[in-house]
């Protein structure tokens, strides 16, 4: 056959696009303006595709439960966890985190868990959103 792909390409013309246009259907002329409007609530972002059940997103840390055993520091592959000596609690730098959830597995009191939050882009790696403590 000469053009095997042709029927598929023609069929594709009449199909609905599969792509989910997140966060906006069309690129805004000013990203800053778009973000400000979203913060004000005048426009709404296109919702993202729902994350699966075991998604590994931003770490949640239950500070009350933590016993300061330092086991999570032992297995963290990117050394993203710092131990605060005086408090006997931990501080997680998400800018270094690889989201492997190994610290969740080793925690003896299950004070760490993975949320489904994935919008973590920031210009400052030490910003408040990127440090969990």
């Amino acid at each position, binding site marked *: *056959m000469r*053009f*095997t792909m042709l029927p*598929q390409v023609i069929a594709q013309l009449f199909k609905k696009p599969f792509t989910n246009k997140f966060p906006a259907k069309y690129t805004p002329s000013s990203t800053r303006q778009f973000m400000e409007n979203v913060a004000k609530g005048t426009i709404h972002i296109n919702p993202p595709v729902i994350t699966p059940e075991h998604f590994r997103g931003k770490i949640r840390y239950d500070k009350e439960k933590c016993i300061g055993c330092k086991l999570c520091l032992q297995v963290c592959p990117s050394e993203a966890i710092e131990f605060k000596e005086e408090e006997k609690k931990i501080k997680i730098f998400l800018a270094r985190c690889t*989201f492997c959830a190994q610290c969740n*597995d080793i925690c003896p009191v299950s004070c760490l868990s993975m949320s489904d939050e994935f919008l973590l882009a920031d210009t400052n790696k030490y910003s408040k959103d990127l440090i969990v403590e």
Partner: protein
Amino acid sequence: MNQPTKTTYQLPIGPIHPALKEPVLFEFEIDGEQIIDVRVSLGYVHRGIEWAGRRRNPIQVLYLAERICGICSYCHPMTFALAVERLADIEVPEHAQYVRVIHGELERICSHILWAGVAAHEIGFDSVLFLTWGLREKLLDLTEYLVGNRITKGITMIGGVRRDITPEMHPRIKESLDFIKGQCEKLRRILLEDKTVKMRSQGCGILTKEEALKLGAVGPTARASGVKIDVRLDQSYFAYGDLDFEYITPDILTGRVNGDVYDRIIVRLLEINQSISLIEQCLTQMPPGPIVSEPKITKLLADLKKINNEGIGRMEAPRGEVFHYVKMTANEYIYAWKVRAPTYANIMPWVPMLKNQQIADIPIVAASTDPCMSCTNRVIVIENKKSHSLDKEELHQRSIEKTRRLLT
């Protein structure tokens, strides 16, 4: 005036070049449109991962190994785990072995489908590229459903896996596999029967069986040349011993082996079907049981700390055989770690493949082995320890030599 005339000229392609997706430098000796000689030089993306691994314990290295390659994000940590299991004599539960096979084969399907799209893109058949990416999206959705994330699975654990595949998950896996099976049939028809694809790939980039054996080609590249080599069958690991499958060579479909790019397309497309059948076999045969031999990670780490031994791990990655060597010396951190990615063995076969081809065939021939340079670049050799210090006389001598070379 009887000056000798130079009939060939040199054409460097790479390390960064739009036709090649990987940082590798080819120096071609060209006569008209024909390639006379090829020199391949590597070493542009050396990252020192093994050195970084020496400051980490085996569990931390798992996630470092996962980042050796984006597409083989499962086989590298798994091979490392195989090496550690061998040196520490850890028995993996049977259920976990089957789960490991399922994830490995899923990765193979993803990789081969992606490759089929890239190969089509290299010959300018971009509509196939989009078709394959649509297929791959379905598989990534399935991966996401099984492990939580799309690419970096984070499923490897020494002595087993981290997440189970329960019977409730089976219908979803079967549904996705049925979809892929139907679509792959379509993809096979499009790629193998299209006149344009045939014209570009048949008789192009030929690697004979003798040369494949001599140069140590691995994986689909070797199998397309008729060499029956597959780690899954040669050295049974995981649950592959219980499963029914055969070496895939192009003569299964066409009745003969040419060793050209077309044969490599055939082998990869047949392997997609083989992988689907392997996953289906796993789903029916999988016995119930635990997913990891030692659920307490602290105990596992304490046990590994006492071990003074060395071990190897071999596994059939989508591109060929991947090999890891690990040594531990009764220390918290690993003492040595060596990775040999499959592309390393598939570099030398490029030379016979590219000789006597045309310049326009370089991208498709280079892409036909599915190269991955970031995995391959492990060592940088500095010749005689003085490659950075050339003195005046030597430079002058080299200059004279080059002039002579250019004149002849």
